[in-house]
């Protein structure tokens, strides 16, 4: 077993241990406070923990599958997220080909470009080619009603669900001297920091939350949860320096950026949900909602993390 596999196992073992503890706490809380399943918060907590098991096992399998596993996993996440996002847009009949090509042409090409490590094209393919060609396809159908809204919605759907999300597996393409063959751990670092920041904000908020931080956007988010969650995930990120190419301090600072972007990403996606009058993006992940509900923070932090690492750590 080489260093890389050992580190991956250490990380998965650590996450597994945390989940076991969380499951035990969830079980005790349920026995004490909600034996008949009547306490909605406890039931939702346990549904979330169970879904976490599923997500961690899936991520673990993808990591073990290496490059192919990770790219396939995120391509599927992009597909499911785009399906949720497109459901909420005001697209019309005339957008049929533009939308169909977003799902069946743009999405596969973007992930194929990442598979082939073609940085020069995957970093511009959607913002340049897709964003110019898709409105042309829509315009050719001749329906001008709400045209700008429809084009903007479709483009933002692609931006969030495909372009930004694809920057997670794109981390595999970075050539960091002395870190060859270990890039999957960079993905693990990003995902662990961003998701633990979400979870820690939830925990701090539930324990000490008083002052609402964005009452209009997300009534459940509190200042105490935000500060506690971001600082503790920053500390967690720093403590994971051993699996990254960063020093302790660098890992902490990057974790801070990741957590902040994740938090504000969550707010932006909440604003869209409020506007469309829904609570969750979907129903596929029990206790969490849809794919976008789980991915919103990853999506906002991944491209920034990617480019910071690319700028400072690759030659």
């Amino acid at each position, binding site marked *: 077993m080489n260093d890389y596999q050992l580190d991956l196992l250490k990380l998965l073992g650590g996450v597994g241990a945390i989940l076991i503890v969380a499951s035990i706490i969830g079980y005790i809380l349920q026995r004490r406070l909600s034996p008949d399943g009547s306490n909605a918060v406890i039931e939702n907590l346990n549904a979330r923990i169970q879904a976490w098991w599923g997500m961690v096992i899936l991520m673990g399998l993808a990591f073990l599958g290496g490059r192919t596993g990770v790219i396939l996993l995120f391509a599927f996440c992009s597909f499911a997220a*785009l*399906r949720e996002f497109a*459901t909420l847009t005001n*697209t019309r009949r005339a957008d*049929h*080909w533009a*939308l169909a090509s977003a*799902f*069946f042409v743009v999405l596969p090409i973007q992930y194929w470009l990442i598979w082939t490590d073609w940085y020069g094209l995957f970093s511009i393919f959607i913002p340049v080619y897709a964003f110019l060609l898709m409105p042309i396809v829509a315009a050719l159908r001749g329906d001008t009603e709400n045209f700008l809204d429809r084009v903007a919605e479709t483009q933002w759907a692609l931006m969030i669900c495909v372009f930004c999300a694809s920057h997670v597996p794109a981390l595999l393409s970075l050539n960091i001297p002395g870190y060859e063959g270990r890039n999957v751990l960079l993905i693990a670092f990003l995902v662990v920091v961003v998701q633990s920041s979400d979870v820690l904000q939830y925990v701090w908020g539930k324990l000490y939350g008083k002052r609402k931080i964005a009452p209009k956007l997300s009534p459940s988010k509190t200042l105490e949860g935000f500060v506690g969650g971001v600082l503790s995930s920053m500390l967690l990120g720093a403590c994971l320096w051993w699996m990254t190419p960063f020093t302790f301090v660098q890992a902490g600072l990057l974790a801070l950026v990741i957590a902040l972007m994740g938090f504000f990403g969550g707010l932006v996606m909440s604003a869209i949900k409020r506007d469309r009058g829904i609570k969750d993006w*979907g129903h596929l992940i029990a206790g969490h909602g849809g794919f976008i509900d789980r991915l919103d923070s990853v999506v906002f932090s991944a491209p920034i993390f990617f480019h910071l690492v690319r700028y400072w750590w690759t030659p």
Partner: protein
Amino acid sequence: MHVAARLVGTAIVLFARFITAVRGIWQGIEPTPKERIYFANHVSHGDFILIWTVLPWRLRRKTRPVAGADYWLKTPLKRFIGRDVFNSVLIDRNPNTRTSDPIATMAEALDEGASLILFPEGTRNETEQALLPFKAGLYHLGKSRPGVEIIPVWIDNLNRVMPKGELVPIPLICTVTFGAPLHIAVQENKAAFIARAEAALLALSPAAEGSDK
């Protein structure tokens, strides 16, 4: 043939899930193995497939769609899909030329223990209206088998997935909502029941739900 039909049926259900991530919402009843007449809004050929997909496996095998023989017997492929895969109850929609009574054919299927899926609009709705006026078959069938529950089923969003004339479906999330069962009252006439059935179905659409709040 039987195995092929099963495999194709499973493949169709998997494909429907992939494209629509369809979710069944049991609002007025539970999915229990009772004999039922489901009636739904009709916007595309996929309507029946979505209802079938959200039904539990045991119910799925006993639930048969009612469809037009003129369409489903046209080519060998349609015949295979319509008759072997979906096990449709095929009725002749042309009142001038038909030799069998559609109501009797449907009642016979109910007597054999099947549940039925009906699209009382009679044809696919391609208008901007939420529903086309219902045909009377639902009333006559309900009247002839008064013990069978009549369930409204609203299929949402499928018209956006695959509008008529488009070849490629767009992946969008769909829902199938099952409402509370209706029974035809002893005194109730055809017009009154049809109006009640239309209202019960429309009340399940998310658009109607939004206007309540």
